[in-house]
């Protein structure tokens, strides 16, 4: 069996499952973010009061945090009260950061786990070998109450990565390359497993970016099989909790196999208004930008901020560019503060906001008609940052830093 097949069979109490089969699975964790109040409203509407198991809930208030209007404040109050009344211990308030990063940092995600949540980018948990996938808020209520949900067992694609990234090329570039090659539904309904000689070299942070961006090619879930780097990341985080990494069998069946030689890749940019609309940096270099957003669950981890800071150190952001930095979590922000990364970013002309989803969720950093933003986020959809006459390009943190200096999309390989 593949990893997805093994996890879904374990969580549904079956000894074996096959692609296409529908199972009733019991997730280890159901995550809800700012959408939590909506799930609470469904619970009230149907008159339910008892949760299946409060220990399986995690709530993180990350979008539009702190509240920017009275309505958001009231909705956050509903979520907060719900967590308190039901004894939800994995509750993180508006100061914590982006749900996915906060939950992994806190040790709530372990290899082999099944996690569902109100966010499409739950796929990111695959960076630690867990099956994460998004669902809507009513379905979250259902899992709160019953502990289970129906899931279709997906077919699996195998992507093998060999070689090493060249200078200025990162896993964001790899994913933009893959999304461009396979398309927005290139892995629709599929599970993806990453293998190859390049994997041991990739940091957990780079793997998180891979598993996060994989959503943009339509995956149901994605896996980087756990290794020593995973164990190192988990050490000290999982406390006494035992975990059981899940690996595919030698005879696992893959519907499609794709190979990528990392050394052949170059920095990539996704152009408006779809993520699959990717181009090598050379074809878009020189495109004027008004704003640069270094944030989101895709690329606002400590490593991402440090990569940008390395390029920005001793240089200055172009006077025509607003560089907005939104650290992914409070822990990341503290680390960046202690190491001097935040100071470098500020001195170079950036502005730093509180941790969370920030502009990616429509909170600050909106664009006017005709404006262009280069972003390290995972989506460049029409109007996602305000005006439907504005444009969003996506890149790695390195390309973003180089471009912020230049005032136009720039190749990070030209900046040491």
């Amino acid at each position, binding site marked *: 069996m593949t990893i997805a097949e093994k996890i879904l069979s374990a969580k549904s109490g079956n000894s074996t499952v096959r692609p296409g089969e*529908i199972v009733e699975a019991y997730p280890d964790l159901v995550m809800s973010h700012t*959408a939590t109040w*909506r799930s609470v*409203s*469904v619970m009230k*509407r*149907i*008159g*339910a009061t008892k949760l299946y198991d409060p220990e399986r809930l995690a709530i993180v208030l990350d979008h539009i945090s702190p509240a920017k*209007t009275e*309505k*958001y404040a009231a*909705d956050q109050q509903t979520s907060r009260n719900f967590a308190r009344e039901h004894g939800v211990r994995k509750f993180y308030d508006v100061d914590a950061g982006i749900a996915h990063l906060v939950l992994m940092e806190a040790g709530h995600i372990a290899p082999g786990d099944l996690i569902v949540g*109100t*966010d*499409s980018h739950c796929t990111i948990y695959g960076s630690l070998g867990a099956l994460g*996938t*998004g*669902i*809507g*808020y*009513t*379905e979250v*209520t*259902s899992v709160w*109450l*019953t502990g289970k949900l*129906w899931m279709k067992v997906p077919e699996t694609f195998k992507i093998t990565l060999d070689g090493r990234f060249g200078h200025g090329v990162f896993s964001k570039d790899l994913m933009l390359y893959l999304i461009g090659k396979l398309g*927005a*539904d290139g892995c*629709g*309904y599929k599970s993806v497993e990453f293998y190859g000689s390049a994997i041991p070299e990739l940091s957990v942070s780079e793997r998180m970016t891979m598993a996060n961006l994989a959503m943009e090619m*339509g995956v*149901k879930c994605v896996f980087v099989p756990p290794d020593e780097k995973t164990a190192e990341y988990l050490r000290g985080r999982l406390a006494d909790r035992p975990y059981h990494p899940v690996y595919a069998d030698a005879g696992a069946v893959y519907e499609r196999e794709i190979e990528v030689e990392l050394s052949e890749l170059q920095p990539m940019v996704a152009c408006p208004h*779809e993520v*699959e609309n990717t181009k090598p940096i050379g074809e878009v270099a020189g495109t004027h930008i008004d704003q640069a957003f270094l944030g989101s669950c895709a690329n606002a981890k400590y490593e991402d901020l440090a990569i940008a800071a390395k390029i920005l150190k001793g240089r200055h952001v172009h006077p025509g560019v607003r560089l907005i930095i939104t650290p992914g979590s409070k822990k990341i922000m503290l680390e960046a503060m202690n190491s001097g990364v935040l100071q470098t970013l500020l001195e170079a002309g950036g502005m730093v906001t509180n941790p969370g989803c920030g502009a990616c*969720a*429509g909170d600050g950093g909106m664009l006017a008609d005709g404006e262009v933003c280069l972003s390290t986020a995972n*989506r460049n*959809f*029409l*109007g*996602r940052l305000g005006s*439907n006459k504005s444009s969003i390009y996506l890149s790695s943190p390195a390309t973003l830093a180089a471009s912020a200096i230049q005032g136009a999309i720039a190749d990070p390989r030209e900046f040491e």
Partner: protein
Amino acid sequence: MESVIQGKIYKFGHNINSDIIIPGRYLIYIDQERLGQHAFEMLGEGFPGKLRGFDILVAGRNFGCGSAREQAATAIQGLGIKAVVACSFARTFYRNAINDGLPIVECPELYDAAAEGDEIRIDLAGGKIQKAANEYSFPQMPESVRRILELGGLAEYLKAQLAR
């Protein structure tokens, strides 16, 4: 939920994402009416007003991709749309539509044959779509999943379960 849905179609292309269907700034609402007022407004050009009078959306591949926001399905219902037929759906939209009681059908053949304004008749139980003299078949949902849709969505389904 009615088993036969009939009406005039509006046709979209491929990869219509859920940010287009309902922008993030309106996720403070969960009711059909207010969400419907803003559905597809990012497209400009008279949306969503120009969708009034249409009964069924027909779309290409990967309809509803992107954000897992359930309100994408709710907003479409708020427009008075009774069903969506697409070549394929993004999985989060597929689940959300079922959970919101919005009938969805995967039928690439109809997409190829249909034009805006065509009248079609969807027989959900029979797995068939009629357009003029032509008939197109589509695969049925698993029985257990169809039951959620038939009860009008997951909240109603849960309510029925709790009442037992």
